[in-house]
């Protein structure tokens, strides 16, 4: 069954542009990315968008569909109200490049500041041992596909523009994955407190809501990091010991 849907797609460069209308015939089972591809193949061959795997595994095709940060490849058209126009816009938290593409390079600079994985010495037979129950919680964070939807939705970045100070949910989850890694021995707490500014997060859980991998970013990553920072830096008894100990 073929029918047409009115798509309003952001076209323009470096933030200068607006929504353009496209009437697109659609088929059963199509996702938003298919519709964008159809527009490219027919009306607008130069319509810019990122995509790769088309199966929710690479995190390239992030955009805001009807205002909601989403992976275009995993958003089925039949989950959207097709009686109204469907808007597709670029992520708002990063500098705009062209059409649906934004400059996400800031994320890579944040990652580079994180002290890399630092393993403890190996066992005598040259192997490392860790158990499934120990790695379960780390594996949750490692499911992250770096779509940066959590960064996009986070109001600390989106509304307050704290890109200089705040690492954002993605990299707090990465820090958590290192801090909770059974083999890792590096200490990143000072960085988590001052470099990544975990304290900026006020637990609105928007990041968790948009995560296509259903990672419990707030509950399982950010809150435990906040607790670790509080234990070291804000525990009154510990503070007293530090003062007395002259540290």
């Amino acid at each position, binding site marked *: 069954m073929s029918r047409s849907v009115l798509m309003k797609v952001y076209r323009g*460069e470096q933030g200068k542009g607006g929504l353009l209308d496209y009437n697109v015939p659609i*088929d*059963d*089972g*199509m*996702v938003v990315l*298919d519709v964008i591809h159809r527009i*490219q*193949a*027919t009306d607008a*061959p*130069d*319509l*810019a*968008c*990122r*995509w*790769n*795997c*088309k*199966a*929710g*595994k*690479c*995190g*390239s095709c992030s955009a805001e569909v009807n205002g909601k940060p989403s992976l275009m490849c*995993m958003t*089925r058209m039949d989950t959207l109200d097709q009686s109204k126009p469907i808007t597709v816009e670029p992520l708002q938290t990063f500098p705009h*490049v*062209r*059409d649906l*593409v934004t*400059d*996400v*390079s800031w994320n*890579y600079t944040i*990652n*580079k500041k994180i002290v*890399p*994985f630092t*393993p403890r010495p*190996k066992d005598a037979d*040259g*192997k*490392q*041992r*860790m*158990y*499934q129950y120990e*790695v379960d919680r*780390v*594996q949750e964070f*490692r*499911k*992250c*596909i*770096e779509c940066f939807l959590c960064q996009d939705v986070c109001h600390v970045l989106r509304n307050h523009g704290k890109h200089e100070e705040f690492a954002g949910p993605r990299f707090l989850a990465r820090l958590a994955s*290192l801090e909770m*890694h059974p083999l*890792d021995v590096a200490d990143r707490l000072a960085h988590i407190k001052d470099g990544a500014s975990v304290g900026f997060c006020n637990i609105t859980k928007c990041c968790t809501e948009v995560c296509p991998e259903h990672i419990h970013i707030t509950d399982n990553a950010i809150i435990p990091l906040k607790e670790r920072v509080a234990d070291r830096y804000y525990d009154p008894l510990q503070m007293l010991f530090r003062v007395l100990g002259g540290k």
Partner: protein
Amino acid sequence: MANFTKHEFDVLVVGAGGAGLRAAIESAALGAKTAVVMKSLLGKAHTVMAEGGAAAAMRNADDRDSWQTHFRDTMKGGKQLNYFRMAELHAKEAPDRIQELEDWGAVFDRTPSGLINQRNFGGHTYPRLAHVGDRTGLEMIRTLQDKVVHMNAEIFMETTITHLFKTGGKISGALAYSRTTGEFHLFRAKAIVLATGGGGKAFAITSNSWEYSGDGQALAWRAGAELLDMEFIQFHPTGMVWPLSVRGTLVTEGVRGEGGVLLNKDGRRFMFDYIPEAFKNDVAATEQEANQWVAEVAAGKRATVRRPPELLTRDVVARSIRAEVQAGRGSPHGGAFLDIATRRNASDIQRKLPSMYHQFKQLANVDITKEPMEVGPTCHYMMGGIRVEAETAMSTVPGLFAAGEVAAGLHGANRLGGNSLSDLLVFGRRAGWGASEYAKKESLGALSDQEVEAAIAENLSCFGRSSGENPYTVHRELQDMMQDHVGIVRIEDELKTALKLLDEFEKRVQNVHVSGARAYNPGWNLAMDLRSMIVISRAIALAALERRESRGGHSRIDYPDYDKQFSKINHIITNDNGKMVLRAAALPVVPEELKKFVEEA
């Protein structure tokens, strides 16, 4: 005069999937000034889509395993056309390469004793695939990505290489354009490692993304390097078949590794009807035996009986599904049913195959813990590619190296699942090492601005003309043509037609018209990639026409059986002044000490 930015490096790595990143890490670690360029963002390469695992005889899940058995399995899976030395190095070195990933922070699933867990896969005698649920590739690429950013390697994202340059017969540089800005970059380099993956985008039904346009094979061939075994394309037996928009999207072999069975529309478990003579002793003879194998494996025990026939090599399973569909016994959307719901409980399925659960739920509205999936063959992998020397990964052009899917030799006529991820690591490292050693002895070759400017003019010509075809139309028609004439089964007439049609496609590609500006223009980007697709399409069709037999990832209706004559040769494709020429070359002679593993097969 065209503008371009100049860069100078010892080693330039093209591609940032598993092989490219591993090469860059090695090259930088050995002190070479290294750059990595990639068409997408860092961490998005095709490797992230790999699901099942990385094969290595680590013996964590079954201590009967050994590199010799892995070597034997690889040769047998490749129908003995593999370059034995690559298969030997791969089997010997894969365990260290996997262990190394763990040292860099990868978190694989664990055995009860706390070691890296390994799962069963098609064609592997023992549980051998180190894995993380069904997202092993993501784990691998993230680990390598987080490693490389702390190395002394410069990263150029969203940058496409369009031309390689040589000076005095040796590689000396490459021309690139930034997809983001449309600006040109000249990379002068002493050595170049191609790690650009495959070319499945030349086919209509494929698990591959837009990036897979065969750039590396085409660049290498144009630069005078030899291509090997190009006729062998792996059609993965289980791609999604419905909805149409996700047709071809991969369904991991892990589903079958975890006990999933293939059924036709009558509910018959048809793989028992298609067991090839050579594999008769390797697979279960009855459903009862197959079920016992699944029960033992699911309980975490060592299997004491033979594996289900669903775990035969991919070429066999893909052809069997196709045969069932041809015979009118397919599923409603023209595939077969893949059922895990009645074999394993819901929580096992969600834990072992989380992204498959997710993928079907979200894209097809199918709950795989309750219903069967519909699957069919999808173009997945190129066994053929650039002919390289096993130890250093250098091609026949001095200074030009290749690793991963873009290179050939390891997999012969058919790749075993899981051998790709380990291939990337083993030969990515070797290429990085080979290139940095080579670069130490060389100086930068002189390059004339005129040569570079001519290449830039060629890249921009599609903007200049006032009329011409839409690149998307040409691409779609090329894909349909390749799918119909050079697809999963082939016949002489159609291959000859394909070669004739490719002459026309080549002209059409040269005449496409692109509108808009250069910055982030996917129409222009596709026009560039089409030039590569034409080269590999022709190489595939040419080699497929000459191999008058069926073997592995090459099936001929007119020659349905193995042919002794062809069991002793590889096809090599060369560039004779721009004309593609094919020659047959005798297989390398397997030395005595390895022969016994091969002959056992």
